[in-house]
Each structure stands twice: as C-alpha cells, then as structure tokens.
C-alpha cells in the first residue's frame, strides 16, 4: 500500500546517516532529529516527494470524475440552458479541463498510468498520453451520474435541463468532495504537496459552486 512512502523514508534515513552536516555543494545543515534543508530533502527524494497508492488512485479517479463533468457541461449550449447555467457550465468546463491536464501531468511525471479522456475538443489532452482508460472504475466513484441520469440530462431542454443539470452537478460535486475526504482519511495520503494543494482546491472550489448551485436551484423551484 505505502511502498513508495516506505522506500522514501528508508532512503531518508540512509542519507541522514551519511551526511552529518555539509553536503557536496557546501550547503550547511543542522543535523538533528530528522533535520534537513528542503534542498537536501530534494536530493534525497530526487525532487519527487513521497506519495502513496491512494494519492495515485485519487488522481486517476478524479480524471474520470472530471471527464464526466465535461460531458455534462458540454450539453448546456445545445440543450438550451438558461444564461446562469450556461455561465456556470462554461466555467466548469474551463476549470475541470485544466485540472485534468494538471492531474495527467502529475501522473506522467511519476510514470504512473495516465487515464485518457475521450474528448475531441481538447487538443492538449489528446496527445502524449497512453490510451489506458480505467473507465470501469468510474461508475463506482461517488457522485457519478448513472447511465439513466446522463440519458435524462441529454434529453432535457431549457428549464428542465437547468433543473436536472444543477441537481446532478451538485450530486457530482458532492461526490468529488467525498473523494477528497477519503483521500485525507487514508494514512499517509494527501501529504505530497501537489496532491494536498490540488485536493484542497477541489474541495474549496466545488463547495463554493455547490452553494451557488443550491441557490440557483432554490430560485427555480416552482
């Protein structure tokens, strides 16, 4: 489970024994209870802080999760959404598209499997990634729309589309927040700096959007 982390810790201990204070490049350090400079730490871990299998699974899963949000957002214009939902959908589209690129980059840099996203109008996402897609896991992720829900949304128009879009996107966002909490609830996970920052950002952004969507929905209720 935490093989990577354990390996890194072992490497750290070894390095600590070997270098008491001065490094090759002359940077001083305090030797003490695990005391190193960030520069020394980076040399020890090769510039890639330790991460866990749960971190990887979070990134891989969230790519699929975000991909469904893109599909939903992509329906807004042709399904005659109202102006508020169109603005919201456009922002979700830009935000989550960029975040997918970020997650793919994070995985690629660590030579982990990078899920592809079948999305024709994302030229950046279309190249330089293996075509392995763990879509079979997608349906198990919290908040994902079922095939029936997605079909219902695809068929809806106008005010009915707005209502369904908001309802389902709230469900979808709440699922993403559950994924973040599961990540932080998993020992050793969410410690790697990029994972922490990204997961925290997902939680903060999507919580704000849920609040906004609830208000929009409230206003549409008959």
């Amino acid at each position: 489970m935490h093989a990577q982390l354990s390996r890194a810790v072992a490497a750290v201990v070894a390095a600590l024994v070997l270098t008491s204070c001065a490094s090759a490049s002359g940077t001083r350090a305090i030797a003490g209870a695990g005391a190193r400079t960030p520069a020394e730490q980076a040399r020890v871990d090769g510039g890639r802080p330790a991460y866990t299998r749960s971190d990887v699974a979070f990134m891989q899963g969230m790519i699929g999760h975000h991909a469904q949000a893109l599909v939903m957002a992509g329906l807004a214009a042709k399904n005659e959404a109202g102006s508020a939902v169109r603005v919201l959908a456009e922002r979700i589209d830009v935000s989550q598209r960029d975040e997918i690129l970020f997650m793919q980059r994070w995985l690629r840099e660590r030579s982990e499997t990078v899920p592809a996203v079948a999305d024709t109008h994302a030229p950046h996402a279309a190249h330089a990634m293996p075509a392995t897609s763990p879509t079979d896991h997608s349906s198990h992720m919290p908040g994902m729309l079922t095939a029936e829900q997605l079909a219902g949304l695809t068929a809806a128009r106008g005010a009915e589309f707005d209502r369904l879009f908001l309802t389902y996107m709230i469900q979808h966002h709440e699922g993403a927040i559950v994924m973040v909490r599961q990540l932080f609830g998993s020992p050793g996970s969410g410690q790697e700096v990029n994972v922490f920052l990204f997961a925290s950002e997902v939680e903060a952004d999507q919580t704000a959007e849920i609040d906004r969507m609830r208000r929009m929905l409230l206003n549409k209720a008959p």
Partner: protein
Amino acid sequence: MSHQSRRRNSGALDGVARLGTRVRPLAIVLFAACATSPAASTSARRVADPGTGTASMSMSPPSPDPRVGLRAGWFDAGVASWNMRLVSATKPSPSFTNPSTPGDARLKNSDLAFKGTTVFQGNYSGWQAWDVSDPRAPRLRAAYVCPGSQSDVSVYGNLLFVSAEATSGRVDCGMEGVPDTVSAARARGIRIIDISDLAKPKYVTTVQTCRGSHTNTLVTSPNDRANVYIYVSGSSGVRSSNELAGCSGSPLETDPNTALFRIEVIQVPLANPAAARIVSSPRIFAGLQAAPRHGEQAADLEARPAREPRAERGPTQCHDITVYPAIGLAGGACSGYGVLLDISDVANPRRIDAVADTNFAAWHSATFSNDGSKVLFSDEWGGGTQPRCRATDNPIWGADAIFDLRDRKMAFRKYYKMPAAQTALENCVAHNGSLIPVPGRDIMVQSWYQGGINVIDWTDPDKVHEIAFFDRGPMDGAKLSSAGHWSAYWYNGHIYGSEIARGLDILELSPSAHLSQNELDAAKTVRFEQFNPQEQPKLVWPPSFVVARAYLDQLARGSGLGTERVTALRGELAAAERASGASRRTALTGLAVQLDRDAGAAADARRVRMLAGVLRELAAQ
C-alpha cells in the same frame, strides 16, 4: 528604521535556522560545527537579469505588447517591462533551491511582510528574511526551515506569525510529514516565532486551529495596546476531533459548533505571546442570503434566492481578509462572496454587507482606496496554479472587481484584468497587491503570477488603465510549471515582488507620461516602520513642496486647470520654496487664497483645493 540599520550586521545567517519548539543541545553543537565564515555565506545571490525596460513619455502602452512571446527559462527567462525597472533579482537561498527539479512545489515562495529594512518571505518549507538596506543587493538574514504551506507571514515588533495549513506540517518543523491521520505532531494554524535575534529565531508556540491557516491577517486595535489579533482564514479540510478537540466538519444544521462557516480570531498578549489563543470564532456568514447585486447581470438575478432560504448556508470559509482599521472596516474574500466587516470591536468582527458575483469563482483578497470610497476584490479563479490569462479566457474571469463603498454598502462598478495574453504554460490570475502612495490618485501594484506585475490607475473605475508592468516568460517552455509573482507590494519607495520559483524581485517605477517624477517623489515621502499588506495603513503625506508639485503635474496632465495658469503656479511655487520664514509663509498663504478662487472655474476643482490645502499646511509649518 534606525534600530534596524544598527542591527544590520548582527550575525547574518545563511543556510538553516531550523529551530523547533525544543532545540536540542546536540543540534546546537552540530550547527556551530557546521558554520562557515559569515563573509562567504551572507552574500545574496544576485542574478544578472537582462532587463529590457523602457520608460515612455507616450500615454499609449507599447504595441505590440512586449509581454507576449517572451523566452521561457527559470533564471534566464525573457523579460519585458514598461515604466518600471528591475533593481535586483535575488535567487532563493541554496537551502530553499532544488536545482534538479525546477518548480519543486515544496519550495514555493509565498507572501511578504516588512519591518524596517527587513523583508520576510514565506516559503512552503519555511521562511526567509532579507536585509534590503541596499535594494541592489539584498542580503540573506535567515532561512528558517519549517514546512507546512502556505507560510503566509505577518510581523509585529519582534514576533513573526506564519500560516500553516498542510496536513504534513509538524510542530517540530520536521521535513518528514505526518503520515498518521490523527497525530499530536501535526501543526495546522499559526506558528509564532520570536525574531528578536534573526540569527537565532525562537519558536514560541503553535496556535492550532481546526482547518489550519491558509492566510492570516494581523489586526491591531487602537483601544487595546496589550494585544494584537490575528484573523485566521482556513480553506482546507477540517481535521478530526480526535486530533484537536472540538473540531467538526459537519453542516451547520446538524452541528452548531461546526468549524465550517466561520473564521478564527487569535489574541496574542504581547507580554506573553506563548499564551496566544483563539478568543472568538465569529460566524460572520450567519444568516447570509445571497446578495448578488449586479442588477445588470441576468445570471446574478437568477442566482438570487426568491424565497425564504431553507438550507441557505453561505460560504464555509474566507480565503483572505484585508483590514483597514482607519475606517473600521475589513474586506473579506470568502469563497463565493465578498463581505464587508465592521471591525470596531476587533475580537468580534461583524458582517455589514455581502456580494456574490456570477463572474467571480473564488474571492481572493481586497484592497481599499485610501479614502475608503472604493474596494477592489480579486478573483483567484483556479487557485493560482492554472493558466487563466490565455487569449481564449474570458477577460472578466480571474480578474479584479471594483466596488463603490457608499454608506458601508458595496456597489459594483467594473472589472479589470491584466491585458497581456499569456501562454498555456503560465499560471496566471489576479493576485496580491497594494496601494502606491501617489497623492490624489488611486494607484496600485498587483501581481498576476506568471502574468507578472502591473501597476494600474483605478481612480476612476470606468477608466482603469495600466501605467507600468514587468513580466517574464514561462518558467518552463514545455510544460506548465507553477511560478510567477505571488505578491507585489510597494514599501518605502520600492516594489517588492515575491517570485514563487525565482526568489525576491525589487523594482522601481520610472517617471513616465503616466507618472511624473514629482508624483513618484511624493509617493516616497510616505514611509512605514512596519508593513503587513493585509492590514492596510492609512496613507498620510507629510506636507511638502513635492506633494504640491505632484498635484500641479496632475492638473496639467488632466487639464484640470488651464495650461497657462499651471505654468504660472509652478513659477510662484518655486519662488515660495526659495523664500524662507515669514515671506515664504506669506507667499504660500497668498497662493492658497488664489487657488481657492481658481477652483471656482477649474475643471478639477477638487484637486485645486487639495493643492491649496497642502500650501496651507506648508505655511503652518
């Protein structure tokens, strides 16, 4: 200032001062053994940055925009600037540099705080202190290793306050993280450091909070000199009550004591900072109903609840709070809302207004105009790590929004966004800035991450325009690598930029068609002993001839008074300056009386009266 310069050479420290709560004797011994000669270790690493700055006497910005198409690079990226000049670019200390991994996210530089000639620079792995007595060659005073991100810093007297948010931050400042989901070793909240001796910073205590501290705002109270206060904004997850008693991340409906939907206020007794504690957790969002008042935006109207809210909850957190004690107000950038707080009772801030905005994703921070008639909020759409200034990005998203403040209510005026298109390789969105004390105008410097730094005039919200800029090419030519300016602030005559990956930039404005030498010199007459940008100080200009000349320049530029009259006034002002004693007083008073008459027929009567006011102040000296 003077006490600062005296301390300048009191044992500078390169490398590390990783001094946790309990420094072990062994560590001290080893530290001493490892010390190299101060002479060899204190020189700041200045880099030759090929600044290609231009100062222009034309009102038009350069075209084509030189910020487009700059060469990529870490310390050798292409540079473009207009009406400002890079004085020095100082790399992070070697302890905070990972040469093998450009853009190592553990080593991001974050926010700045200022005291005397020392600049404190937060870093995701701790903080550094720079002596900037000579802005051309900043000297490293301390590199303090203490991971925890974001390490936002505030300074007061001999105390430094540092935000810790990450779940990997430790109370002993160790690098090893905290793998356990519940652990007493974890530090999330405010770290308090005694910096009386920068060569040996002393860790005083950690004030733990449920959500950690994303940012912090130092607040002083005119009625309470024994304490200072810290407003803590925490925006990441709530920790377990097993780790910190009382923490709950439940919805407000099921748990009235939830750590969501509030901020924390820490009181720090100056006589005993170790006794700092949370004194209140104001629910500043209580009963908050959506108040989006962009009447002209249909999308906002749709987002407004039409009836009694049931599960109406408002934001769960603030991202950042800017206090402006001189007017008793604070601007809170809180998730989907901008809120206005009354802070007359510092420990118990009270919400007095709130706005939401369809075009704002994540309200980030606030800057008030000096007279308190306007407030500018920024929107950090994408959290600062995404490229949001591409040609394809909506120019009102990830931007600034300017509001009028009337009767302590906010009324939307305009959006503003840095206009130069950036690449998909550059994270870019509105971020931190501060006012530049040019009298008679609202001028502000702002950072845009890899969009660089720009200076805007927002005196008239309908005509916000750029008057200077500085930008580098992407950190990496092949992939998005997070870098750029976290913050850019004016402090005692220079602009200080905290560059996430590249270190500390010091810049100066050049006189231009948009900003005269007199206006620039007048700005430099406003000086502070200490400056935390999130506690906005009232700008007050000591009476001086240069302030009067700055007003005359503005009257000439804006045709606020007839050209010939301005020329005549320049001559009379110069004559008064040459005179002394009673004859100077008589000349100044006489000029002021003339100006009162001029004001009646002037296109810019207000500015003419401001000029008369300065002359009367000078006469009274």
